[in-house]
């Protein structure tokens, strides 16, 4: 039986067109884009072509505002640490939210060891940041606000445009981790009025190991990686040309197919949520009911634990992700789920279901039916299920 992949957020399958372009590129044996000779010219041209395609996806005013990196994580580290180091004389205060990805949280945590101060704003039960709280947190020492766009665990989409407005008014730079949103839903950097966004190719059917950082013209930040003058001196190291070519093709398709993919995913998401509510008792759909990523459903199944669910689904050739503490390296319950006031037991039973262009309605239906049986099996074993029913 074919594997049903509902864990797109871990890694999207490559688009066939992306794979072909990358294989072609490998066969072609490109030179180094920094070389002055003709082999270098050819490589440089194809690199810049990819940059244009990525720029178009996020409506960047110029391709030069895009820096290619190794991942969304690197982009985020670059944005946060780069701004912090470049603006240390102005101030050492940074604002973020309680539900950021670890690459934001840990970058900031490391900065606090060098005298930076971080304010983290709370979210409500739907996972939304209140812009008024961000406004209140700004001081004359604040140099950066970093708040994510779509949350990777619960899908909630933050009011980035409004937040950018507040930041601009107060002359504070704004960065957003847009890893889950770029290529999935429209992200227009000019419309948002944003200074920096981070994104990653593997979220929109491109290869893993390539990311992008948009830097608005005039924004000062230090490079994270020092060396040669690649990427306009912003990121040293010979470019991952094969990966970048793949990212460019993936970006072009994501841009062209944006509307059709969106309506496909919205249909799947509705079907999934309706089916789950109909067939399985005692579940919670996390995140905001409307302001949410179109390709993600966060589901807490009461009385059972997530890793067990994932393993049992895996036996049935269905792949999903869990945010239970047991499945994470740190054995700690997800900070995002605890921030939206889920209790520990419910956080333990949380799955993140993500899908994409190639996902079918049949796959969604099969998932719901198989999950129903898995839930019944595990609940029969669970002491919590018994207790809650007596």
């Amino acid at each position: 039986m074919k594997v049903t992949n509902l864990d797109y957020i871990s890694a999207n399958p490559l688009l066939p067109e992306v794979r072909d372009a990358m294989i072609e590129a490998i066969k072609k044996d490109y030179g180094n884009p920094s070389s002055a000779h003709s082999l270098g010219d050819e490589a440089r041209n194809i690199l810049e072509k990819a940059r244009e395609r990525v720029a178009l996806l996020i409506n960047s005013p110029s391709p030069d505002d895009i820096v290619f990196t190794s991942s969304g994580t690197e982009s985020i580290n670059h944005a946060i640490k780069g701004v912090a180091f470049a603006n240390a004389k102005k101030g050492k205060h940074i604002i973020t939210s309680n539900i950021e990805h670890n690459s934001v949280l840990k970058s900031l945590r490391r900065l606090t060891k060098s005298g930076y101060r971080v304010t983290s704003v709370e979210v409500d039960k739907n996972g939304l940041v209140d812009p008024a709280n961000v406004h209140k947190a700004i001081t004359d020492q604040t140099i950066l606000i970093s708040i994510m766009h779509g949350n990777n665990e619960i899908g909630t989409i933050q009011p980035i445009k409004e937040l950018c407005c507040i930041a601009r008014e107060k002359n504070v730079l704004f960065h957003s981790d847009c890893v889950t949103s770029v290529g999935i839903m429209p992200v227009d950097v000019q419309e948002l009025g944003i200074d920096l966004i981070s994104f990653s190719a593997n979220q929109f059917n491109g290869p893993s190991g390539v990311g992008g950082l948009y830097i608005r013209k005039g924004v000062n930040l230090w490079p994270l990686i020092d060396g040669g003058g690649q990427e306009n001196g912003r990121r040293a190291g010979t470019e991952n040309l094969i990966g970048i070519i793949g990212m460019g093709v993936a970006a072009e398709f994501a841009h062209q197919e944006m509307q059709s993919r969106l309506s496909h995913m919205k249909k799947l998401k509705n079907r999934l949520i309706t089916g789950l509510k109909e067939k399985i008792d005692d579940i919670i759909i996390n995140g905001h009911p409307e302001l949410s990523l179109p390709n993600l459903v966060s589901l807490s199944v009461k009385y059972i634990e997530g890793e067990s669910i994932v393993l049992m689904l895996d036996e049935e050739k269905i792949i999903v992700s869990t945010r239970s503490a047991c499945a994470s390296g740190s054995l700690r319950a997800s900070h995002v789920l605890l921030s939206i006031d889920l209790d520990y037991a419910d956080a333990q039973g949380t799955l993140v279901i993500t899908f994409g262009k190639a996902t079918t309605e049949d796959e969604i239906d099969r998932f719901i039916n198989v999950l129903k049986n898995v839930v019944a099996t595990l609940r029969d074993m669970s002491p919590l299920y018994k207790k809650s029913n007596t």
Partner: protein
Amino acid sequence: MYSEVVMDHFKKPRNVGEMKDPDGVGEIGNPVCGDMMNIYIKVKDGIIQDISFQTFGCGAAIAVSSMLTEMAKGKTIEEAKKITNKSVAEALKGLPKNKLHCSNLGADALQLAIRNYEDKKAGKVRVKLPMEDVHTHTEGDLCKCPYCSGDVDQGLEFCSNCGREISDTH
């Protein structure tokens, strides 16, 4: 991630379910850690005639519970007292290092069930024992860092060996 024996017990757990009129019950764990186990025993002539479990937890926790019930079934109380978390993990052909502590509570739950049985027999009514009273670390006195497997002191935010972040509630 898991050994074949673990996966076998996870997929086909033995002796699942609540027991009617058990002679002893042992409950351990809490959902904050991620795992809860109940062990039920029926004892006749000093022998564990029947045993069953209920578990809320990961694949390892379920496999541990299942293996434990197989190991204890038919044993005398004195023999069953010798079953440790370590021997259960060994019978499962090993568990991932970071699961040894949190999920490997089966023998502790069994010891609680035995104590509960002995108390009942002696006519003692004892309040439920806190987990700390019976919990023994599987390997020596310390917990292990999930990354480098080095010993970890209680209450530290970072592993003192490899510098990586670890759970403060491990």
